[in-house]
């Protein structure tokens, strides 16, 4: 009679103990976090370390063995004229594209923050550049900028800006190819920035603006004194997303221009791909990619500062 009772107590005790352990927040928290953290350390942290290891080695895709060569790979990379073009392009494309985005996204955010009929459909059209996989939208641009059948060439021909017999090869000349890549990057990062700014605008209490209007402040005064300062933090978030997308891009350039004409539109991402995968030099490819690191680190620091400021308010 007493034996089953004892056994039952033991079982109850066991479950209570496990429960107790998992009910303690300092145990349950790390247990729930660990799958994500282990995964990220294994497939982001470790590869990130490997990028640096490769960059100081002579690793190739053909063999798993490599030896360390110190700064030799970096020396090669810095001596490579295409790398210098790619580095310059990456910075220039990012700055130009995001300058365009700041201006256009502010305007677009403003008009989208109002309510109007058909907003749903307009929003659908405006989101397309951001939502479509970049490889496919770059294809659409490739066709739109086709040297023979571009609609822009036809229009320019009709307006007699260009001779109908000699259409503009948009992607075949340095200046227009560079402009096309910048435009594609601005175009595809604009919707997200606009949408983020729209959210920022709708979160500004309307009383602020109304009060200022009562006090006699005109539109531009209100815009620069009230809207812009309140919008600045979220504007920064929007632009940081755009910077990361443009700075680390590879697909837009790879599909639209293949880095050409010549190497005029190569960027770090595409040149790293050509060198590391198609050229087979893991070391070179990694060394090229590492030059993205300072900017990404800067973005991280800005984001962190943004976050800590957010905690205070």
């Amino acid at each position, binding site marked *: 009679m007493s034996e089953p009772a004892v056994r039952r107590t033991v079982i109850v005790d066991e479950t209570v103990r496990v429960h107790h352990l998992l009910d303690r927040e300092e145990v349950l928290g790390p247990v729930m976090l660990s799958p994500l953290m282990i995964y990220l350390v294994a497939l982001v942290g470790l590869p990130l370390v*490997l990028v640096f290891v490769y960059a100081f080695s002579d690793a190739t895709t053909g063999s798993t063995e490599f030896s360390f060569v110190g700064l030799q790979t970096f020396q090669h990379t810095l001596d490579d004229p295409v790398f210098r073009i790619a580095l310059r392009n990456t910075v220039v494309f990012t700055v130009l594209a995001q300058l365009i985005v700041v201006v256009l996204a502010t*305007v677009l955010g403003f008009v989208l923050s109002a309510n109007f009929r058909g907003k749903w459909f307009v929003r659908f059209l405006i989101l397309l550049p951001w939502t479509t996989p970049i490889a*496919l939208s770059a294809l659409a641009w490739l066709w739109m900028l086709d040297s023979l059948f571009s609609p822009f060439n036809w229009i320019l021909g009709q307006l007699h800006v260009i001779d109908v017999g000699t259409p503009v090869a948009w992607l075949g000349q340095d200046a227009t190819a560079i402009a096309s890549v910048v435009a594609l990057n601005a175009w595809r990062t604009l919707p997200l920035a606009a949408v983020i700014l729209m959210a920022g605008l709708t979160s500004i209490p309307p009383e602020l603006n109304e009060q200022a209007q009562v006090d006699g402040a005109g539109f531009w005064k209100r815009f620069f004194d009230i809207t812009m300062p309140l919008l600045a933090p979220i504007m920064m978030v929007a632009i940081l997303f755009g910077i990361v997308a443009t700075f680390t891009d590879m697909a837009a350039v790879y599909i639209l221009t293949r880095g050409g004409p010549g190497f005029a539109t190569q960027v770090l991402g595409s040149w790293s791909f050509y060198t590391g995968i198609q050229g087979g030099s893991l070391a070179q490819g990694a060394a090229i990619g590492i030059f993205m690191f300072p900017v990404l680190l800067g973005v991280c620091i800005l984001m962190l500062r943004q976050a800590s400021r957010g905690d205070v308010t």
Partner: protein
Amino acid sequence: MVARSPGVAISRWAVLVVFALLCAFPFAWATFTMFKDNADLYTVGHVPFFYNSPPTLDHVRVLFADTAFLTFVRNSVEIGLIVVAITLAISVPAAYAIARLTGQWGGKLAMTVFIFYLVPPTLLFLPLSRIVAELGLQDTIWSLVVVYPTLTAPFSTWLLVGFFRSIPRDIEEQAMVDGYSRAGAVVRTVLPLAVPGLFTVVIFTFAFTMNDFIYAVAFISSSNNMTVSAGVPTELIRGDVFFWQSLMAAAVLVAIPVALAYNFFLDRFVQGLSLGAVKG
């Protein structure tokens, strides 16, 4: 904002029309192109803004019947679904822990997770292609299944932290007072309230996997295992011959459903984004 004169309304519409054209023109042009027959499309003298011969579905048919497009779509959907499952399985517990169980560390952990998201594929694809090869997964869809959560899990976790924080603590605390364990309380009270957030994560996870190009071209070489993003631009272009109508059909047929899904979940996405961004 306050003024509601007809002038304001008209200029707003003008601005919107310009932006809609700017954003949608490449797709409108693609849609217009996909129904053209070859003689119409490739005759230099033709006005490109008309159908000089009647529109045809031939090239859309070619896309489905004579190319690997449907294989690409199937691969993308399979990869997307598995990655969604993995992402939810690791992000939901982590996000809940960050939102509720880590106290003052929560904000710093959320930021750490987000920083993982900022490490770009263009930096990681070389070592990952080696790791994928070591695992014996190269040229299979599993190489992408293993790697894609690096794109989706940090961002999803970050979004979910915001959604979990917006749910009052009292709700699960009450359930725990009523005798449920923490896990039981979460499953019964918090997750049902977080369903819109979870849907948002599902949609964006799926879309992120569709959007990737560099991993797919770096890891996959046979057209049987390619995704839409990698397959359409690399496999449907044969040599220098472009099947423009079929290519445009592929772009449009993928772009429209994805944009519709985004549009549907956009408000929650933005809400999550600003929750995460402002409160870190």
